[in-house]
């Protein structure tokens, strides 16, 4: 089993997680200068702090996954901002990083060409909602992993089919994230979040997400998330990569992980 855990950027957190379960933990790292979709401000650290933590995690024998899953980068990849990001990626990835989770085509090509040793996981923002999308990323583009949509993960018949046609090691599953089925606002939300987060507008992004959740409730849109028994079933099928996002404060998150990983 591989557990992809959001890293709270301090060594104390790393120690506590390792104490819960010393098997296959991969720490998801959020670096302030590299845009992601996570709205938990406490997860981000700056590049210098990140380097220090990466070295510490590596020293302990664990793996690191750099999060770079921004949904819309506003065409900045082809400007000086893109140049700055490439510079940062070079600096970070030379620290023997195991995985990077991305959404963007340009950065995918860059990492494939210049950092072949780093494994690329396609984020959930690549909208991997069907078998053909899995094929596109894993077989055509030779990605090293795909984070599939909950709609797929909940469909046991399809998950059996996927298992029989792809290596389960390459399939990644959200163990604690809620999405909505047939949600026409999803792209709007993701685009808006991308730009608010890149502009550092934390208050706006939180308001946006709260409003979105409220609206989904009002229209009775069905929440899609995996129940514990569904996760067990997926494990029995042979799926190995499960992600546990941090959507709360540090102590509560550690307690949640204790329940899940012990």
């Amino acid at each position: 089993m591989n557990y992809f855990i959001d890293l709270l950027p301090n060594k104390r957190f790393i120690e506590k997680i390792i104490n819960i379960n010393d098997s296959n933990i991969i720490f998801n790292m959020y670096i302030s200068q590299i845009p992601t979709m996570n709205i938990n401000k406490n997860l981000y650290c700056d590049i210098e702090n990140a380097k220090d933590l990466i070295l510490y995690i590596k020293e302990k024998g664990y793996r690191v996954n750099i999060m770079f899953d921004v949904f819309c980068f506003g065409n900045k990849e082809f400007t000086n901002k893109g140049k700055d990001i490439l510079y940062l990626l070079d600096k970070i990835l030379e620290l023997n990083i195991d995985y990077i989770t991305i959404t963007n085509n340009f950065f995918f090509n860059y990492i494939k060409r210049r950092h072949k040793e780093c494994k690329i996981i396609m984020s959930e923002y690549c909208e991997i909602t069907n078998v053909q999308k899995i094929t596109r990323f894993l077989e055509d583009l030779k990605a090293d992993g795909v984070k599939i949509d909950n709609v797929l993960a909940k469909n046991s018949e399809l998950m059996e089919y996927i298992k029989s046609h792809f290596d389960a090691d390459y399939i990644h599953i959200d163990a604690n994230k809620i999405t909505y089925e047939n949600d026409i606002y999803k792209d709007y939300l993701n685009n808006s979040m991308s730009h608010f987060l890149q502009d550092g507008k934390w208050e706006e992004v939180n308001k946006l997400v709260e409003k979105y959740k409220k609206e989904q409730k009002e229209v009775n849109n069905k929440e899609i998330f995996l129940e514990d028994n569904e996760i067990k079933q997926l494990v029995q099928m042979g799926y190995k990569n499960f992600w546990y996002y941090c959507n709360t404060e540090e102590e509560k998150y550690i307690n949640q992980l204790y329940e899940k990983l012990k």
Partner: protein
Amino acid sequence: MYLSLPYNGDLEFLKTVKDRKYPVKTVYGKRFQDVIGGGRARYDIANYSDDNLKQAIELTHEIGAEFNYLFNAPCSANIEEKKQKEIIEQVKNLIEEYKIDMMTIANPKLLKILKENFPNLKFSVSIISKVDSLEKVLEYEKVGATEITLDYNIYRNFNELKRIIKNSSVNFQLLANDGYLFNCPWATYHFQLEGHDSQDNYNGSLKYFSYCRFNCKQKSAQDPYELIRGMWIRPEDIHYYEELGFQKFKIIDRLKETNWLLNAVEAYVNRQYKGNLSDILCSFDTFEKESVKTPQITQNDMKVNTIQNLRHYWDLKPYIDNEKLTKLNFLDFFVKNKIDCRNKKCSDCMYCKNIADVTVQVDNDNANNVIYNLDSIKEKIIDTVKE
């Protein structure tokens, strides 16, 4: 059958459409740049004047059709909140001064805002919104859509098409001639790039180039059966969709020249095309140019040209034998077997592969050159960004 046709900046195109009395219900287009943007980058489209657009709208009305203004960039970087007043002013101006009849929108939030402010304006939901299920159709109906262009990834899923049309009351449009990559992994990213580039506030230091098209061109060069997997609708197959109840078909593209468009429109009006199907699919450049070889790029070519001027280095120029597709009753397989291609691997079916083997021809040198050239160009782009 009714058609929705593009405004490509050339009034002669619309004059010919008028003279030939084509069954046109809508003409779609937009200003070169505006606050929301559209589905095509500025670089790609002809830079026509606002006055030219006004004349196009007048001509559209003379034809007896409606003008559908494209306001369909998927991402507005939150300006639908920040610049709501400016957006409403622009739309008011488009209605009062330009006399538009309809708007295509990809962002449901924007649709909601505009519907509240302009309750009499018709709203068409863009293909960019990826409406691929009845449930999404019904959600868009609630928000106020008058028309929806369904996601092309379901055009051969006759079960879902039937379910959608039987259970909804909104109007539909199907995009007929896009030679896109089925379930393209980068479709959303592509729409975002194109959309931002066509917005007033976009001031990127590098000119836009269609980065995502490199992937689909390379993929098609590697596996020509991709050319059959793309869910275009042939002129000969329109009747299958009409039988379900779909009446309106959109022909693209705004980027194409008048001669190209007239050839494609004529094919759909006549419900047949003799020759190379890729002549009328918008992703290709074979019409009247089939015999031109795609050269291999050199370091010097890349040194002296901008990326934008290297386009002919990724022209695949395939030959898709349309008459053979007709003889093979190509679409019957999907109509009869009611397959959902999205959740099945092609290796379990092989129908498109087998069809491609007997209908598609791609010159090996062209294919190899396209693959090589695009690899070189991608490297050049990385170097350019890093400079």
